[in-house]
């Protein structure tokens, strides 16, 4: 019962946040110089006033701002994200075509960074002060300080060009016609570099966070109790420290999940990954506002959803939550 109620409340809040994001972005975009119609006209290779006026009317850009906003909101609420100015296809189609790629990339980067980060963080905390700890933490510090795009360039240079181990771009071998398991393996193969590139920074973040959190929990009283009970060190780490220490890492990770999409803009560019990060950037550059707004809407929805799921999981993992509310 409580969970259901929680769910309803959170969904309402999530919807509110997403709506807020939509309005915020809509207004933001209005501040931009550069008329979409002019851009399209330019892109079309030529253009005169009549052409641009035609486009404006077609996109409804000749309406007053509040009318545009209202009709946009109305459409969004009825599930219609509008038409891409540039591609002349429904925005929802464009995004849905691209979203799985981004979800795959960010999802695997998320898992990769979280799992690796936690493992390394636990190791470092467990072997605190050892050489291993120093190596892990130095590595984490370096990846924390290295620009993502730079890692991407270097990774392509080394692993694709020099070593020829991994494909440098694309999501799958185009035209190879793989199906079933072969296709999965093919995609997985293509996924390695982008995932690692996108994930390394976050791995560094989670490593540091996990280690700090572990050390903090190790100082807590109940760990002392466990020692006083005669629980061996390994078991203390596994059963007592880890679970308590990981909760804040999860919370942080779920809040940060959205940031991965930001990173995806860069990763998708370098690796020609057909996701919405790229779509967003192109849409922005081409002033294709319905697409831009749509991408933000979908991203916000995904982020809110991830947070919601994380909160739900949290309620299962941490028994204290229910009463705390």
């Amino acid at each position, binding site marked *: 019962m409580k969970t259901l109620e929680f769910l309803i409340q959170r969904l309402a809040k999530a919807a509110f946040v997403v709506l807020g994001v939509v309005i915020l972005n809509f207004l933001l975009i209005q501040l931009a110089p550069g008329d979409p119609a002019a851009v399209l006209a330019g892109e079309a290779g030529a253009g005169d006033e009549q052409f641009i006026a035609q486009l404006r009317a077609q996109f409804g850009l000749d309406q007053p701002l509040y009318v545009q906003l209202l009709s946009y909101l109305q459409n969004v609420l009825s599930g219609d994200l509008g038409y891409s100015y540039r591609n002349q296809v429904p925005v929802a189609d464009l995004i849905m075509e691209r979203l799985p790629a981004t979800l795959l990339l960010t999802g695997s980067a998320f898992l990769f960074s979280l799992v690796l980060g936690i493992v390394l963080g636990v190791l470092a905390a467990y072997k605190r002060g050892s050489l291993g700890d120093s190596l892990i933490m130095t590595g984490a510090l370096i990846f924390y300080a290295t620009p993502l795009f730079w890692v991407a360039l270097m990774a392509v240079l080394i692993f694709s060009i020099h070593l020829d181990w991994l494909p440098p771009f694309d999501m799958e071998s185009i035209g190879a016609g793989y199906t079933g398991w072969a296709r999965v393996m093919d995609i997985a193969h293509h996924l390695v570099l982008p995932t690692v590139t996108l994930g390394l920074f976050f791995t560094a973040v989670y490593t540091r966070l996990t280690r700090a959190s572990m050390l903090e929990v190790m100082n*807590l009283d109940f760990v002392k*109790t466990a*020692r006083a*009970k*005669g629980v061996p060190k390994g078991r203390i780490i596994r059963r007592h420290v880890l679970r308590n220490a990981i909760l804040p890492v999860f919370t942080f990770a779920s809040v940060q999940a959205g940031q991965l999409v930001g990173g995806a803009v860069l990763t998708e560019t370098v690796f020609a990954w057909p996701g919405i990060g790229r779509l967003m950037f192109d849409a922005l550059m081409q002033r294709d506002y319905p697409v831009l707004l749509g991408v933000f809407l979908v991203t916000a929805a995904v982020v809110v959803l991830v947070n919601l799921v994380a909160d739900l999981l949290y309620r299962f993992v941490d028994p204290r939550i229910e009463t705390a509310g």
Partner: protein
Amino acid sequence: MKPTTPLLKVDNLSIELPAGFDRKYAVENLSYTLEAGEILCVVGESGSGKSMTANAIMGLLPSYLKPSSGRVLLQGRDLLVMSEAELARERGRTVSMIFQEPLSALNPLMTVGEQIAEVMLVHGEGDARSRDERVLELLDYVGLPDPASLRHSYPFRLSGGQRQRVMIAMALALEPAMLIADEPTTALDVTTQAQILELIRRIQRAKGMGVLFITHDFGVVADIADKVVVMEKGLIVEQGTADDVLNRPQHPYTRRLIAAVPHPDESATRAEAAGEPLLEVRNLQKTYRSGGGLFTRPRIVKAVDDVSFTLRRGETLGVVGESGSGKSTLGRCILKLTDVDGGQIRYRGKDLVPLSQAAFRPMRRHLQMVFQDPFASLNPRHTIGRILTDGPVANGVPMDEAQKKARDLLALVGLDPSAYDRYPHEFSGGQRQRVGIARALALDPELLVADESVSALDVSVQAQVLDLMQDLQKKLDIAVIFITHDLRVAAEVCDKIAVMYRGAIVEAGPPAEVFNAPRHAYTQKLIAAIPGRHWNPRAAVA
């Protein structure tokens, strides 16, 4: 037949502190013994090294603290030379420990049953079934209700007393020969404390365990100890049987501690204060609502429920009651630190309840407060001078005047004038509490609310601060609302006592009356639970 080797023999133990601490040794040249079937109480003020010895025995010292000399012989074997693995085998099996903070001492993410069973699990005791049975047995043994469902609960669902019982059950799981209890009742209400003490004593008798009991409360010592060790600054200043130490203390430090133990002065009667009422509280209501949503009812706590009383100039009203009874909330309502749901608070006839914060602010100077925690109530980033002048300056007093006043106040509360430019962390707890009092007095208030103002202090310091407060009150003719959970303290300093229970005042009257002839069942229970009631410290040091 007495065994030849004592259960525990601490022999010449010293633990060095790292450089930069106030003293060289945390504990120095400690020697004492504990026999099976005995309760040895270690008493002393905060920082005297009580916990340190306990941790040294369990091998739980932080990595950078190492015993520099001595031996700790448990059943004849030196614990200090054992490896971590060997120690782990002993812990929980031959010697167990319970701690002060029952909430933080339990893993929040494991059910209590799991945590108790874990002791047996890691020592390879029994199988899953037998362990489950043992858990039920233990829970039942320590007096917890409905063990079958309780063992699946998480610690946060249990009350403080229940958690402490779980800790005890855990400690007893393998029937160790020895139990170390580090202030196990300090965080609990008196009534709960009495129950836990009773439980420990019962178990100790039944199992013939040796118990090392650490406390700073002589009342508790009087209730349970067979032998007593008194510590001061890392050294043992006196040890002996409970009777010797409590009733015939030799060392001046022990005598001083015992003299400071609060004890109701049952003979003294006080003059009724007369004159205009300063503060009249009528039917005050305050309800906290929290949580609650579409389908659940909110948690409603009637923190203050229809409370009325009158306070006159120069009078001290003691508000006592157990934790959560609404004492602090009452104080906060009077100072308008929180909204009120109903009733009146009339100060000099003017009702404060309807006033807005802004309208009330000019009146604040008449109603001041002394806080509980001498560490938390002073802004660590401000000098004492700034802390003392902030109030007057906020009330429009010119800076130089405020400064002069501040210096006068320092003298008044017995602090050195040099304190003016120093920061709070450079003072001891008692000194800080004096600053807190000075701050409250800086505005020449007519009413002072003191919420647990001495609870965080060691007894000897507590006695000094209480003296100071009483002194000043007489001198300045201030009315005081003195909030405390310690009936002994209240009885010592107050003109009237109000006993609160679940937000309501269930009994009120002069201390002697309340103490000697409690009418309400709750008051009776409260008084019965006062530790060391049958021991008169005044007689010991007379």
